[in-house]
């Protein structure tokens, strides 16, 4: 078990890892952001506008 000291890959630094670095190191959080943003801002907003188009007289 010569790897026991390898538990935390970041233990070379005692500094805490900044929040933004933790976010960028989390692919699944990024996956969520990358799907939620365009889904809400582009698809949902766009579809709502299309649904709201009035009927011609």
């Amino acid at each position, binding site marked *: 078990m010569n790897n026991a000291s390898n538990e935390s*890959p*970041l233990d*070379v*630094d005692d*500094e805490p*890892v*900044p929040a*933004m*670095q933790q976010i960028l190191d989390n692919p699944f959080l990024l996956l969520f952001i990358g799907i939620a943003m365009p889904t809400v801002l582009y698809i949902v907003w766009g579809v709502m506008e299309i649904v709201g*188009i*009035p*009927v*011609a*007289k």
Partner: protein
Amino acid sequence: MNALTPPTGVWWKQPLDRVEGTWIVIAFAWCLIMFFMMPYWHVYGKQNLSNEAYRTTPEMFQAKTQAMVDKYKVREETDQKIPVVAPPAGSDVYLIARLWSWWPMVELEEGKTYRLHLASMDWLHGFSLQPENINIQVHPGYEHVMTVTPTRAGTYSIICNEYCGINHHTMASRMYVVKAK
């Protein structure tokens, strides 16, 4: 360590190089200028695509167009006897896009403003006014209404620039702009 190897430690706190910092500031300023150009043009520019649109049906739009043709027809052109209509300034002008023609032809007066209605009877088409090079998508089921002011007299072409099947390239018509009477 390079872009193919994993960085360790707290890279987030590595100080920015002066080249990068300066460029980010310049580039971001340019991005803001480009962004605000669009709302600016809505207020101070004259070429903005209308937001006015309605849900419609081919029958309804056909009926409105027919009514306009009956009222304002001035002559017929080509072997297909396509009517040419000359509606008065300020009025509603209807233009049908269908496989594979535009109907009817319109004659407008220079410097006057019209409300142009566009809709398709079947598939998607592209209203492309040449040589002015104004290009607008035409949908079936939607009536797009915009005000338009022709500025120069002449004979213009309307071609279809949205692929609409095997005879797409034959879909062309004219728009006449005459000197104000």
